């Protein structure tokens, strides 16, 4: 697979930009003046309590929702003013891993993973090896003929990751990928996200309530030579001429950004609200 980073880095400027974004429903504004930008190859971890707008942020980034005010730009295009037809083309460059997987339950695992390729009219003889490759990536190649209902929750998330990476997206959005999973399965999912980041160099936005997931992304990396997850070593990356994938955190509170910074700043904070996430 060609690293998606190659495409991403050709786009001048940040991969995702939120500029003073408001989003409201009948019951009032959920997001109130959210602004941030995510450079290519960076991983942004969105933390916050339930209902603070983390999932909505991801849906805004892919154009599934429109902001009531402000602008959202993705890969240099302003998604907040694009028509649905224009957005359909842009979304081909974005992978979305939904909280519960959102697999099509009437299709087999293989058909789910191949869905995007069939929509793009890729030749059938090319589809099978690519589906196998994506399923091998998530170590689920033996489930290709099974229905999603026959899989466990963790396996469904892994298939969802395989489906998201099948067309080598520039950006992947993860909506609480480890929510409701046991610690071992959560670790497997995080390892996959690390591999996806370090092997294909994708830009990522991850909404989560689990701080340890964010720290795992910040402190570990996938070693392509040993094919193992190892503690991140920026010095080694610099020696190899690579830039270590950066991880930043944003914490939402009451629809606003309460904290924005790197893992060291967050772990060293004295703020009582932020300390609640560190417990």
């Amino acid at each position, binding site marked *: 697979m060609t690293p998606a980073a190659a495409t991403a880095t050709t786009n001048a400027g940040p991969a995702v930009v939120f500029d003073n974004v408001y989003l409201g429903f009948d019951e009032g504004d959920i997001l109130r003046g959210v602004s941030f930008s995510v450079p290519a190859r960076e991983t942004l971890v969105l933390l916050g309590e339930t209902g603070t707008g983390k999932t909505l942020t991801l*849906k805004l980034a*892919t154009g*599934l929702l429109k902001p009531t005010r402000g602008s959202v730009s993705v890969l240099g295009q302003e998604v907040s003013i694009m028509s*649905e*037809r224009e957005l*359909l*083309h842009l*979304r*081909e460059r*974005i992978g*979305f891993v*939904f*909280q*519960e997987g*959102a*697999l*099509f*339950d009437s299709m087999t695992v293989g058909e789910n993973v191949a*869905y*995007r390729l069939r*929509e*793009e009219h890729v030749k059938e003889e090319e589809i099978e090896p690519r589906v196998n490759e994506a399923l091998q990536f998530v170590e689920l190649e033996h489930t290709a003929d099974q229905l999603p209902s026959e899989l466990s929750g963790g396996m469904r998330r892994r298939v969802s990751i395989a*489906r998201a990476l099948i067309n080598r997206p520039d950006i992947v959005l993860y909506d609480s990928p480890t929510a409701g999973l046991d610690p071992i399965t959560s670790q497997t999912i995080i390892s996959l996200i690390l591999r996806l980041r370090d092997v294909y160099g994708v830009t990522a936005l991850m909404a989560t309530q689990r701080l340890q997931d964010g720290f795992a992304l910040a402190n570990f990396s996938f070693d392509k030579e040993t094919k193992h997850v190892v503690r991140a070593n920026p010095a080694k990356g610099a020696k190899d001429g690579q830039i270590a994938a950066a991880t930043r955190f944003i914490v939402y509170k009451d629809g606003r950004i309460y904290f924005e910074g790197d893992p060291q700043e967050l772990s060293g904070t004295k703020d009582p609200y932020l300390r609640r996430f560190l417990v």
Partner: protein
Amino acid sequence: MAGTPLQIERDASPEPKLSIVDVLVDSLKRWVASVQDYSFLSARSVKNLATGPRYFQDTLDQMDDIGVGSLPIVLISGFFIGAVMVLQTGSQFTRFGQAALTGDIVAIALVRELGPTLTGILVAGRCSSGIASELGSMLVTEQVDAMRAMGTDPSRKLITPRVLATVLVLPLLTALNDFVGLLGGCVASVFSLRLGAVEFWTRAIKALDFADLMQGFTKPMVYGFILATVGCYKGLNVRGGTQGVGRATTQAVVLASVMIIAADLFLTKLALYLGDKLF
């Protein structure tokens, strides 16, 4: 008792009182908005036929599900309706010594009116509910969002194939219903009224003219459009999780059945007018 932990403290500020006029205006606004949304969905389902991408395989799958799947209920019901009609009309005609006219009446009633309308209502009961529950479940499990996130327009992939399939198969189901209804009528007239089978069929066929057939096969196309678009509209506007899916399913059947009966009045008037002018 006041002061106990179980006491429910009421908010001091009284809720704003709504007048009956406000409630009626609100309901009217919501109804107009629903009609507008339904009209947009219906128009879009037709407009999608003009441009690609088109989903032929999905349309064929839906034709199989809606058409072949509905055959047993349509045929069994048609047979008994035809037989009951003969018994009811035959008992009246026998009093005037005109039992032979039974074939004429049954043929005209079945082909013009009962065949299309009953087939429409039977298929609405089976398929409007099926469509609403399927699409509603897809919506609440984020499969519709996943589809959009992968660059697919749900109105093309989910709505248009269902609408087209239903419009195409309902006239065929109606034709079979008419035939089996006449067969049931023939059996009843032979065994109950002691009429000859040949006489029954000869009179039934002679009683029908081209205008009757036009009316009998145009109506189901409209009914098919109604039952599929209502099912899609209710399914894609589900609110309130799985409970909402159940509610949408019931509403889809009720609304589609009422709309079919209401449309029948106008279509009959139009068909009679055109029949007089053209044939």
